[in-house]
């Protein structure tokens, strides 16, 4: 273990899924032709006035409540002033000293035993970093994860800037500005520096994204910029003289969860190396901004940030403040619905699922959970329903790129099949055949079972067949008697060949019973 602790805080910008911008009624639809979704307000023409989007404010409040934030009853908007060509007014309307929400938390499932950076040495090369699990689901319930609360400092509502592009290869001297995005509502969620590893950072983002998706406040598409993450990261190094904090570095331009994880893994050993060379401590140098280079998997230095006092925040006189009554808050709280953490707990307590299973199902979204709940209720067995959801329904959804709403078989029809399997009318393997056929023919389980000639084999027939096979295979009887359990497989195979409707589990039981009665030869 390296002799330092990684300290990470995240600033997450979430584009709210409103139809229109924050202060004007231009569309926010992604992918429109450049500069076709602008108006005098969002391109900053003199004499125009902004008017707050009610939906944007309510989505923000719902999110803050779901993040367990306190709400300021009185909130206002301020001008953050800086010059950049994608910011037409010369200031961004944001919130400075009275954000609408503050002091919340988000509970994540954090990997145990991390609390240390996981850099594999001071080489500073991305290639030497410890490999981390690719896109494996978190291993909840397997003793390797533990709940951890990440505190939220604040969430505030502000407007987005436009987009500038520069095509060097085309030999064009100018940068091109598209203001379609200018004025799109953004919720900025600032966490405390409570994250201690790349894996925790990823877990926080995954849980935040899931929460936002359940709330329906954002589509969280990172490629389209609906979810943008900046990380503030430094190290606490253990030295004989005590703990030393290194200067804080802000990392930007991370376009996927994977990129965030890789960037954190890259920064830890890099910062340790810089500290070993320079001995610089927190406060010795101004905060540095670095960009993430996804191709070369490294961070690179960017221009220094202007001091925050240079933004010269002032209350925006064009916008009146907003007050929030206790009644309004309660009304909004009632619309939150069941959030992922509560839903996982309910699936575990009501349907007996493991933490791992509930995590997998809840991560698939509310609609799939609703399907599962109906299936579990109808077939009367949560564990069985969960297994079939994960091994059969979700597999087909993945292969055929279907949403659960598009999956051709409803929970009632699937429950009918599951009940037949549970009742021993057919085994799981044959059950899968029936389901595959149901997907093609759209017929009910009962019809398909009949079509395939599947019928429950009479107990006496199974006993008779088993005895017949035992008589014909004395060698196998000896093997079984001497404890070679694998010998049963060949007999079960023969039995299935004779009658494909034989339930192998039941046949195995009968076999054991009959073998025990056989005289030792």
């Amino acid at each position: 273990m390296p002799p330092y602790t990684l300290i990470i805080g995240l600033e997450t910008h979430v584009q709210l899924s409103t139809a229109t911008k924050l202060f004007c009624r231009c569309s926010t639809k992604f992918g429109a032709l450049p500069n076709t979704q602008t108006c005098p307000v969002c391109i900053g023409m003199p004499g125009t006035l902004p008017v707050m989007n009610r939906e944007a404010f309510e989505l923000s409040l719902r999110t803050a409540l779901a993040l367990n934030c306190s709400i300021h009853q009185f909130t206002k908007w301020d001008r953050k002033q800086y010059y950049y060509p994608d910011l037409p007014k010369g200031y961004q309307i944001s919130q400075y000293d009275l954000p609408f929400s503050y002091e919340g938390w988000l509970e994540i499932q954090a990997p145990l035993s991390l609390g240390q950076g996981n850099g594999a040495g001071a080489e500073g090369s991305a290639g030497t970093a410890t490999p981390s699990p690719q896109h494996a689901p978190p291993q909840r319930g397997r003793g390797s994860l533990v709940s951890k609360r990440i505190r939220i400092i604040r969430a505030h509502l502000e407007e987005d800037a436009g987009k500038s592009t520069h095509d060097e290869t085309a030999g064009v001297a100018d940068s091109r500005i598209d203001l379609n995005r200018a004025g799109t509502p953004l919720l900025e969620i600032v966490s405390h520096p409570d994250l201690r590893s790349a894996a925790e950072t990823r877990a926080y983002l995954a849980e935040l994204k899931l929460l936002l998706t359940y709330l329906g406040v954002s589509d969280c598409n990172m490629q389209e910029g609906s979810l943008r993450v900046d990380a503030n990261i430094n190290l606490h190094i253990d030295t004989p003289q005590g703990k030393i904090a290194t200067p804080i570095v802000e990392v930007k331009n991370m376009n996927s969860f994977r990129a965030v994880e890789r960037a954190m893994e890259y920064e830890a050993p890099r910062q340790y190396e810089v500290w070993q060379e320079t001995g610089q401590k927190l406060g010795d140098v101004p905060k540095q901004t670095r960009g993430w280079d996804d191709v070369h998997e490294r961070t690179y230095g960017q221009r220094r940030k202007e001091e925050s006092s240079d933004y010269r925040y002032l209350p925006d006189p064009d916008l009146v403040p907003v007050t929030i009554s206790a009644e309004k808050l309660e009304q909004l709280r009632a619309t939150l619905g069941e959030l992922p953490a509560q839903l996982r707990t309910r699936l575990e307590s009501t349907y007996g699922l493991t933490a791992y299973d509930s995590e997998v199902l809840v991560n698939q979204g509310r609609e799939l959970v609703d399907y599962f709940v109906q299936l579990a209720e109808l077939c009367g067995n949560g564990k069985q329903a969960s297994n079939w959801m994960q091994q059969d329904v979700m597999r087909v959804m993945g292969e055929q790129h279907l949403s659960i709403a598009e999956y051709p078989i409803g929970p009632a029809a699937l429950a009918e099949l599951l009940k037949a399997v549970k009742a021993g009318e057919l085994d799981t393997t044959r059950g899968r055949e029936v389901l595959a056929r149901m997907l093609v023919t759209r017929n009910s389980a009962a019809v398909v079972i009949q079509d395939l000639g599947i019928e429950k084999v009479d107990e006496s027939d199974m006993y008779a067949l088993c005895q017949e096979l035992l008589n014909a295979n004395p060698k196998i009887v000896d093997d079984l008697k001497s404890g070679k359990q694998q010998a049963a497989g060949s007999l079960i195979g023969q039995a299935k060949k004779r009658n494909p409707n034989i339930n192998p589990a039941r046949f195995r039981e009968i076999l054991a019973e009959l073998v025990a009665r056989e005289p030792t030869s």
Partner: protein
Amino acid sequence: MTLSRADVEKVALLARLELSSAELNLLTPQLQQIVEYVESLNELNTEGVEPMAHALDVANVFAEDVVRPSLPREQALANAPHQDGEFYLVPAVLGE
């Protein structure tokens, strides 16, 4: 509060104003006078008075989230010093 010439230089930089030495000489005392004028507010006793966030005693002005037509692109770009019919063109923004 006394404004130094360096203060005025910094404010000019933040406002993207290029001032000559002669202009700085002229503007520093003028800006100083403005600040002194505003400072006269300090004579008032504001003990126990709540800070005012807005000059109007109005709150909660919202618009509904319904799309209205945007400007045609030609009109949006019409006042730009440089444009190519699709984008605003500005001097290269690099090093981000």
